[in-house]
């Protein structure tokens, strides 16, 4: 399953809710303001790094770049473009957007 999160972890609990419900081996894609959680020094970074042990974590590159965060991505986070986003949706049998 692919989980999509789009809000900053500093604003909403959606990242936390997602990580709570994501089963081992599933994928989490951070888009829009959620990408901040995947950057160094962010308060949510530890959560992402811990989650990366059981989940595949992705962040949308164009959203990172648009926020000046492209050079600050955490180790273990896979950066994808929109083509990669489409591939992730296609590769997983279902997806959930944590709005």
């Amino acid at each position, binding site marked *: *399953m692919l989980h999509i999160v789009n809000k900053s972890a500093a604003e909403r*609990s*959606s990242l936390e*809710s997602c990580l*709570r*419900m*994501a*089963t081992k081996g*599933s994928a989490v894609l951070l888009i829009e303001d959620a990408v901040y959680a995947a950057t160094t020094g962010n308060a949510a970074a530890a959560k992402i790094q811990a989650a990366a042990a059981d989940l595949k974590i992705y962040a949308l590159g164009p959203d990172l770049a648009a926020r000046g965060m492209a050079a600050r991505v955490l180790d273990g986070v896979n950066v994808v473009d929109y083509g990669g986003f489409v591939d992730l949706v296609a590769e997983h*049998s*279902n*997806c*959930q*957007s*944590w*709005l």
Partner: protein
Amino acid sequence: MSDMDDMDDGSGIIKKFMFLNRKAPHGTVYALEGLEVVLITAAFDQDVSLVFTDDGVFQLMKGIDSKGIEVKDFSKTYRALEGYDIEKLYVDQASMDARGLTEDDLIVDVTVLSVDEMANLMAEQDVVISF
């Protein structure tokens, strides 16, 4: 144009639909308009699960009285879902605990699931729509 015209897509396909309600009522429109989707989906004879987690559990509170904010009280509609053959209602134990709620506080009968049970239920769906 009526939603009733659209009812049967003719494919005979039955998919597992999960409607995941994560937002409290009234502060935003998502709970109400989400419920409208659920009611329409019922007419398509799909395998529907209705799930309440996070602040979504507040949608099911007994004793809602929205007269003072001059907004329609749609919480009674949850009681009518059985008549639409929507009988799989689930709430998340942890979300209930985090809000000091028990099943007795809710307007309808629900099945309370652990996080793991909820996660597995979600993973096996064909379509998840979250409001």
